[in-house]
């Protein structure tokens, strides 16, 4: 537990020095959001289109930043040292929590902007924020694992999106469907099946990642 915490602190400090991932992810989100907003305007899109757009922006912005956590270790050639000082499970969890925090920072900026610019009206904010919270776990879990896989490959950036998409699509599909419910209905129970699917899939993907991470990390 302490090792996980120390790795998280180390990554946070490194991130504060360069601010690479946070800048990339936030700017990407703002650029896409403004492009979409210019093209569509404020009052034209319905809730169906808006909830899909929201997840598309969220997914592709996270794709621009989540992989940095492992690529950084390869670029500065610190991966081998890290192998010596910590167990794989702790490394994975530390980096997973870092990505989780990164996604939360992204949403703190993206959600108010999206609601303001696109005139997105929520009937039930409980469903919406619960979906975001569970969705974050899924996105961060799958994203961290794929980042570890591609950090050794060439053409990392393009490969990261290509590999993540099929694995994260269940999160995306149930997330979009739950966000639609959040815009249309007010009772929390109306989105029950979507939230269950999202939760189950997030648990499965995180468990599978922890089990398989050993093989990615140890050569």
């Amino acid at each position, binding site marked *: 537990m302490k090792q996980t915490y120390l790795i998280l602190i180390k990554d946070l400090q490194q991130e504060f020095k360069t601010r690479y991932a946070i800048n990339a992810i936030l700017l990407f989100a703002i650029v896409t959001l403004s492009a979409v907003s210019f093209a569509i305007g404020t009052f034209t899109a319905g809730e169906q289109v808006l909830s899909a757009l929201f997840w598309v922006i969220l997914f592709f912005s996270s794709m621009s930043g989540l992989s940095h956590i492992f690529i950084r270790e390869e670029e500065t050639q610190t991966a081998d040292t890290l192998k010596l000082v910590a167990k794989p499970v702790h490394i994975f969890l530390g980096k997973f929590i870092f990505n989780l925090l990164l996604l939360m920072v992204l949403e703190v900026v993206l959600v108010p902007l999206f609601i303001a610019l696109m005139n997105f009206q929520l009937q039930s904010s409980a469903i919406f924020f619960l979906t975001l919270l569970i969705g974050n776990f899924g996105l961060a879990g799958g994203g961290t*694992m*794929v980042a570890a*896989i*591609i950090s*050794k*490959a*060439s*053409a990392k950036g393009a*490969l990261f999106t*290509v*590999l993540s*998409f*099929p*694995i994260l*699509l*269940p999160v995306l*599909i149930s997330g979009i469907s739950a966000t639609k419910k959040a815009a249309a209905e007010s009772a929390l129970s109306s989105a029950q*099946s979507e939230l269950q*699917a999202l939760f189950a*899939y997030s648990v*499965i*993907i995180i468990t*599978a*990642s922890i089990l*398989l991470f050993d*093989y*990615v990390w140890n*050569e």
Partner: protein
Amino acid sequence: MLIKIGKWLLFILFALTITGAFIWAPLKEGLGEFTRVIYFHVPMAWMAVLFFLLAAYYSYRYLQSKNLLFDAYAQVSNEMGILFAILATVTGSIWAKQIWHSYWNWDPRETSIFILLLIYGAYFSLRSALEQEDRRARLSAVYSLLAFVSVPFFVFIVPRIYFSLHPEPVLNAQGKINMEARQRIVFFSSLILQTVLFLWVFNIRRTQVKLKMILRRYEETKTFKEN
């Protein structure tokens, strides 16, 4: 000798099944002549999932043993799998044009086969991006197993939760098969015979890959000794 008889038996039964599918089996009401695609389309989709399972199995074996042979087998299974996934998509899409009047409308079944295609595509692009051989084997095995987690979700859960226009799958919720006796005979013999035939093809590919690897090892030791 036994193998030779088996081959001839397979040939004759296959010829009978294909003829039966076009002439003997009755048509379903409402679908007309388009019923016949089921005898070819469903086995193809089944083979795509089966080879995906085999790929995951060989990936697991590779991670356990670190034997590059299993990695080569996993690659062969994925190659066969992508072939059948494409065939199932194309036959299904042509059928959909006739019955639903559009080639593609994101029916849950269409989504699930599309994801299968994406995973296969991603697997091969990952392989081409990794140069070092054991690293390529290890990481693509991990990806195969990771993707294996999401496939049951798409193939078995999504089409059953969301409303689908797709005719009821053979393994439906009630556990019943809505087919007439003659349709059933042709369908299951087609399913079994195609499974046998393509597993046989797969076995030939496996032997080929194995021989290639033995030959390579032999040449490597030879050059090593000469130096």
